[in-house]
């Protein structure tokens, strides 16, 4: 939808796109469309766009389910920031936060053999994106920052 425009992402040129919504899973599709449309405009191929789409969905789903424990009226912000090198998405909430260091990377072999439900979101984000970073200030501002490098 957002056609690539010549010179739109010259070095140093930062573009920002922001979406603020109530924290409902109802809005996940809208968030995905928002992010994929911008990613398409930057020139990512379909596979990379799908990776970004899924990583962002997982991060936002976690905010709704975990940060706000299903309360669908809390603030969920998605900020997309692009420059010539990085496609950065910052998802922020004012919910309970968590200690990402305490979350263990799932052992997929064990995971599958035990047929567990859930626990894949953060693993997916880390597998799909080039950088994943959490900054927590519970009740104030918790942030997940996802970065995908733009093919040069």
């Amino acid at each position, binding site marked *: 939808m957002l056609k690539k425009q010549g010179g739109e992402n010259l070095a140093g040129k930062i573009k920002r796109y922001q979406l603020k919504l109530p924290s409902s899973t109802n809005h996940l599709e809208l968030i995905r469309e928002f992010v994929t449309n911008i990613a398409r405009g930057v020139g990512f191929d379909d596979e990379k766009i799908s990776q970004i789409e899924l990583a962002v969905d997982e991060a936002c789903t976690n905010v709704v389910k975990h940060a706000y424990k299903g309360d669908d009226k809390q603030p969920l912000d998605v900020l997309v920031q692009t420059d010539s090198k990085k496609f950065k998405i910052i998802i922020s909430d004012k919910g309970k936060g968590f200690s990402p260091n305490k979350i263990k990377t799932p052992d997929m072999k064990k995971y*599958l053999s035990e047929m567990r439900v859930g626990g894949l979101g953060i693993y*997916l984000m880390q597998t799909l994106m080039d950088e994943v970073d959490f900054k927590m200030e519970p009740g104030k501002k918790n942030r997940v920052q996802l970065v995908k490098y733009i093919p040069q």
Partner: protein
Amino acid sequence: MSGFEIALLENKEIVTLHLKGFLDAHTAPDLETELQKCISNKRYKVIVNFQELGYISSAGLGVFMGFIEEIRKNGGDIKLTNMSSKIFRVFDLLGFPALYEIFKTEEEAVQKFT
């Protein structure tokens, strides 16, 4: 725009679910309900056709994980068919093909059941 829909086809012992649209944390409960019904009705041979599914997240994957054990305990299975490469990539990334049989067509899945 797409939303999520499930069409259900019953053929003798086999229940086939056609998924359409997107399967995420918002719509996963709908699929859960359908699979729960299969189990309540003792229909343990389930085929899920992904032909028209445009998107799946881990919430959608989790639904299958939540039922596969009980279904297999009862001599059944959930077999997956007609995945686009986009959907297959997500399953593959997580190693799910080791746990689920994935077929190109429904016919192949039916044959495996019978």
